């Protein structure tokens, strides 16, 4: 637990642990400043930032449950791609958005459960099964596209999703899902148990917590996030291909790290990390774009800023051995 005050003064560790939030504020300030100088359409930009970050926010918020356990899921992007395609196919057969939502969520949750159950059955680190799932899901994507028989893409009619492709709807989804996650993570025993298990697996098991059960529940929550992200992806861009959601896996990792989430999980895990990190990442991309830099240079600058922000945010948790 970070000591916030000592002798009436704010401790340095409190400042460091607030680094992601301060980083977000700083990035927002830099963004607004550059936007003013470059005469950018700020209101449109903000809507744009919301559109670009919301899917990562939703998926990453669900993924927090996995990372809190100290686990790691490399197959989130592939899982989302499968959910997106299956959801689109379901809509094309039924014409119902509700069915599409249910199928997206159901498919994503099933995939996540398979990963975690397999890990339990074979007694493997869950990361190993997610690697296997990654290959399987990538192959499944190609099969789905072929089975659908409409060339290299699966399309949902744009008119069908136009009415829900609005910032209001996306915010509603985000708020509801975040509220659910905040409630279960911060105010119910699920969150506490997950943090305990992530922080000290041996002690957690000795106190009677079931690692397998918590892993399954955590993956199910992550699957819910992936499913909602898949639904939002279809509403935003209803032409879907094998490359849909290709970058989601890496975006989620960067977002939660950028947001101050410790990669090893445990007690210091925060559900808000996903939202802070997603927004920070998107703001940084927008700043790079406004500066219109060479792609390679822009990427190098992003790398430096990324590590600088994470370094500051983790200054309070340094030990005398190297982290792993």
């Amino acid at each position, binding site marked *: 637990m970070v000591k916030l005050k000592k002798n009436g003064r704010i401790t340095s560790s409190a400042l460091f642990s607030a680094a992601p939030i301060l980083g977000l504020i700083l990035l927002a300030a830099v963004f607004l400043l550059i936007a003013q100088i470059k005469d950018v359409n700020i209101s449109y930009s903000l809507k744009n930032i919301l559109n670009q970050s919301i899917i990562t926010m939703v998926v990453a918020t669900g993924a927090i449950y996995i990372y809190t356990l100290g686990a790691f899921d490399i197959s989130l992007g592939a899982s989302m791609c499968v959910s997106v395609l299956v959801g689109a196919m379901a809509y094309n057969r039924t014409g119902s958005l509700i069915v599409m939502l249910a199928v997206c969520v159901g498919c994503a949750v099933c995939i996540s459960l398979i990963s975690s159950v397999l890990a339990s059955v074979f007694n493997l680190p869950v990361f*190993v099964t997610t690697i296997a799932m990654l290959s399987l899901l990538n192959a499944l994507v190609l099969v789905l596209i072929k089975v659908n028989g409409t060339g290299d893409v699966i399309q949902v009619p744009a008119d069908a999703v136009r009415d829900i492709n609005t910032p209001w709807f996306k915010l509603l989804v985000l708020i509801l899902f975040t509220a659910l996650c905040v409630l279960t993570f911060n105010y119910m025993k699920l969150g506490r148990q997950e943090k305990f298990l992530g922080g000290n697996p041996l002690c957690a098991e000795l106190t009677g917590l079931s690692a397998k059960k918590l892993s399954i529940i955590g993956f199910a929550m992550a699957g819910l996030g992936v499913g909602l992200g898949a639904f939002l992806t279809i509403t935003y861009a209803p032409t879907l291909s094998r490359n849909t959601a290709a970058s989601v896996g*890496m975006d989620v990792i960067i977002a939660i790290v950028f947001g101050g989430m410790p*990669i090893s999980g445990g007690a210091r895990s925060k559900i808000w990390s996903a939202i802070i990190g997603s927004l920070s990442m998107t703001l940084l991309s927008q700043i790079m774009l406004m500066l219109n830099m060479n*792609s*390679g240079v822009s*990427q*190098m600058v992003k790398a430096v800023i990324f*590590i600088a922000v994470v370094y500051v945010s983790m200054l309070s948790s340094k030990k005398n051995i190297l982290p792993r």
Partner: protein
Amino acid sequence: MKLEKKLAGTLAVPVLVLAVCILLSVMKGVVLFDSVLSWTTFIRAMTNIVLVTFALSINLNSGRFDFSIGSVALLSSIISAMLTTRFGLGPVGMLLISVISGGVLGLISGVIYVSVKLPPIIVSLAVALFYEGMAFTLTDGHGVSFANNAELLGFGTIPNYLLIIAAALAFMVIVFDHTRFGYEYKALLSGQKVAVSTGIREIPNAVLCYTIAGLLMGAQGFVSATNNGAITMALNFGSISPMFMAFLPMFIGGFIAGIPMKNSVIFWEHFPQP
């Protein structure tokens, strides 16, 4: 355990995989290895996987997930290709430059890790982005092409690939089984806190691990580049895909290494299955 049982256990997986491949080939009406070219393709693929798996496993076994090995291979091959085409060097020169530059890039990566003391996965993400960006900037996005250079392209023969595999294997066995660094590496692997408490200097050990991984990926970058004479750029983590081909061989190798046969453990632990 009897020697025959140990041998059978050790060879079971590769023989089983071969049997499945032969069966699939027969069903499809093709011959699995019908020419020297088939063997060359197979041995080259094995070379790539051996090098990447060695590089990945050095750090992954220590709990250090490294996304940046692909970018090290990319940047080291770019540097070596640019210098080779500029100064008219041959394949040996290109290989040496690629290995050395890979080692330097790995060293930088390791120094960053021990300096910032952040989880290695985070450091590797940043390093991967940085190296990809640097490779893109160095070539202005064009990559490097030497498809006209018969000498460099002619390196890709079975004896040369086997030589690289043998050299990498010998290097790994010697360094990790017969040096102080190797003993300390294993001590840290099995108990980090205890090992550090006994006086093992973790920081130089970690830096050296990254450097060795970089050397191996430099060699892999060279093998990849001399395959078709072109190196194309990657951005936004496009270079991390080589890493994923190493996981299965690593796990199979680790599984096989569990079969108690002293000498074979040394061999199979370091010889991943393609």
